[in-house]
C-alpha cells in the first residue's frame, strides 16, 4: 500500500522575536529552503511591511524571494479582532470587511489558505457568534480568489468539541469548498510545558500542561482538514520532542491519507537563533517518522 507524501513547510511565526531584530525576511526564507521545505506560511500583520497595503516594490521583492528559494506561499494568518474597541463590540459586517481585506491581500501574494483567528466569548474558546455571518459574507470572494478559509483548532479546544461541530455544520449547510479546518498540533501535547520566566504554579493555565487529544480523533474530521500547523516547543539533541507525541501522530495522519502541509510552528524558548535550529530538528524528526512509516507499509504490502 502506498501512502500519500506530506508536504513540508515553515511558518514565519517560528522566528518570532528573531525576525526584525537579528534576522531579515530573506534570512528566514533561506533557512526554510535549506531544510528542503517547499511551503512558507506568514502572518499578514506580522510579516508584511506596510500592511494592509504593502508597496508594489515589496510585493515584487516577495515574488523574487519565493522564486530564489523555491518556496510557495501556503497559509496566511489574520485576525478578526472582535474586541477592537472597548466601547462597543464588532459587527458581523465589520468582521467580514476585515476578513475580505485579508483574503484579497493573501490572494495577491499567492496564498491558498487564510486562517482567521476570531475573538472568543468563553473560557473554552467559543468564537464570537459573528464568525458565521462574517465568513458567509466572504465565501464568494474566497471562491473567486481561490483560497480556503480555515479557522484553527487550537488548545484548549479539543477535536471533540461544539466549536469543531459548528464549523463542520457550517461546511455541510453551505456546501462550500472554501472553508475547512486547520489543526494546530499543540492539541496532542501530552507533557507539561516548562514554566515561563516568572510563572508560578498558581498562575499556570491547565492547558499548558497538555490537553492530550487522542491522535485517533483526527480520523473523524480528516475529510475537513485542509492544513496542519506543526506546533512544537522543544526537540532534544536526540531528536525527541519533549511535548508532542509525533510517533503517535504521524501514523494517524498517514492512515487518514493526509497529503497536505505540515507547517512548522515553533513556540519555544526565544533566545536569538534558537528557532532556526529547532525548526531543523523538527523537520529531521518528521521526515524520519514519515520514512519509517512508509518503509514498514511497503514491506508488508
Amino acid at each position, binding site marked *: 500500500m502506498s501512502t500519500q507524501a506530506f508536504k513540508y513547510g515553515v511558518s514565519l*511565526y517560528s522566528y*518570532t*522575536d528573531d*525576525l*526584525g*531584530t*537579528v534576522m*531579515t525576511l530573506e534570512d528566514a526564507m533561506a533557512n526554510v529552503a535549506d531544510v528542503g521545505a517547499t511551503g512558507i506560511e506568514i*502572518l*499578514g*500583520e*506580522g510579516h508584511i*511591511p506596510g*500592511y494592509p497595503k504593502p508597496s508594489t516594490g515589496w510585493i515584487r521583492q516577495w515574488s523574487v524571494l519565493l522564486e530564489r528559494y523555491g518556496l510557495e506561499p501556503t497559509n496566511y*494568518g489574520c*485576525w*478578526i*479582532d*472582535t*474586541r*477592537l*474597541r*472597548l*466601547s462597543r463590540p464588532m459587527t458581523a459586517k465589520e468582521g467580514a470587511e476585515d476578513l475580505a481585506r485579508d483574503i484579497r491581500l493573501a490572494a495577491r501574494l499567492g496564498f491558498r489558505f487564510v486562517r482567521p*483567528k*476570531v*475573538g*472568543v466569548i*468563553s*473560557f473554552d*474558546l467559543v468564537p*464570537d457568534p459573528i464568525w458565521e455571518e462574517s465568513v458567509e459574507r466572504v465565501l464568494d470572494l474566497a471562491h473567486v480568489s481561490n483560497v480556503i478559509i480555515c479557522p484553527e483548532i487550537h488548545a484548549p479546544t479539543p477535536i471533540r468539541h461544539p466549536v469543531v461541530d459548528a464549523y463542520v455544520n457550517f461546511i455541510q449547510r453551505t456546501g462550500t469548498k472554501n472553508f475547512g479546518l486547520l489543526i494546530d498540533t499543540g492539541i496532542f501535547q501530552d507533557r507539561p510545558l516548562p514554566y515561563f520566566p*516568572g510563572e508560578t504554579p498558581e498562575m499556570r*493555565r491547565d492547558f499548558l500542561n497538555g490537553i492530550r487529544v487522542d491522535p485517533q480523533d483526527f480520523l473523524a474530521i480528516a475529510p475537513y482538514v485542509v492544513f496542519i500547523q506543526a506546533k512544537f516547543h522543544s526537540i532534544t539533541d536526540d531528536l525527541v520532542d519533549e511535548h508532542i507525541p509525533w510517533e503517535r501522530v504521524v501514523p494517524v495522519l498517514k492512515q487518514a491519507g493526509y497529503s497536505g502541509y505540515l507547517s512548522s510552528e515553533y513556540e519555544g524558548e526565544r533566545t*536569538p537563533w534558537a528557532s532556526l535550529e529547532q525548526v531543523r530538528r523538527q523537520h529531521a524528526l518528521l521526515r524520519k517518522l514519515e520514512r519509517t512509516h512508509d518503509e514498514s507499509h511497503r514491506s508488508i504490502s
Partner: protein
Amino acid sequence: MLERHLVQTRGFRNTGPRDAPTGFEFRLRLPSYRGLRASLIDGVDVTVDGAHYGYESNRIELGGREFTLTELREAVDQRWELDEAAIVRVVKPGGLTIGVHEITVGVRIRQSYIPIEFQPSVVKESRKATIVL
C-alpha cells in the same frame, strides 16, 4: 533593525528644557508576533528605580501622533508595526538623573482571541538604560 530589548537604547532621554526637564521618554519595541491596531494597546506601565508611572497617564507616540490612553483606545486607524518603535512619554518634573537606571515596562495588549478573564495581556521586561543628557 530594532534591538531585542523592548526598551531601546537609543532615544532614552529627558524631555523639556535641558535645565528644567519635565519628564522622560524612550523608544519601545512592540512585544508581539504581529503588528496591531493602536486601539488594542491598553497603555504602558513604567517603573524606573522603583518609582511607578501608571499606564493611565503615560502617553504614546505612533506614526508621529501622540495619544492619551483614552485616544489610544479608539485609535482603530493607527497601527503599531513590529519594525516600528513607539515613543513612550512620562511626566516627571525634573526628569531623570544622568546615569544608569533600572527601567521596567508593562505593555498592556488586548487580544480578542484570549478569554477576557486573562485580559489584557501584560508583557513585562526590565533592563538597565542610561540617561546621557
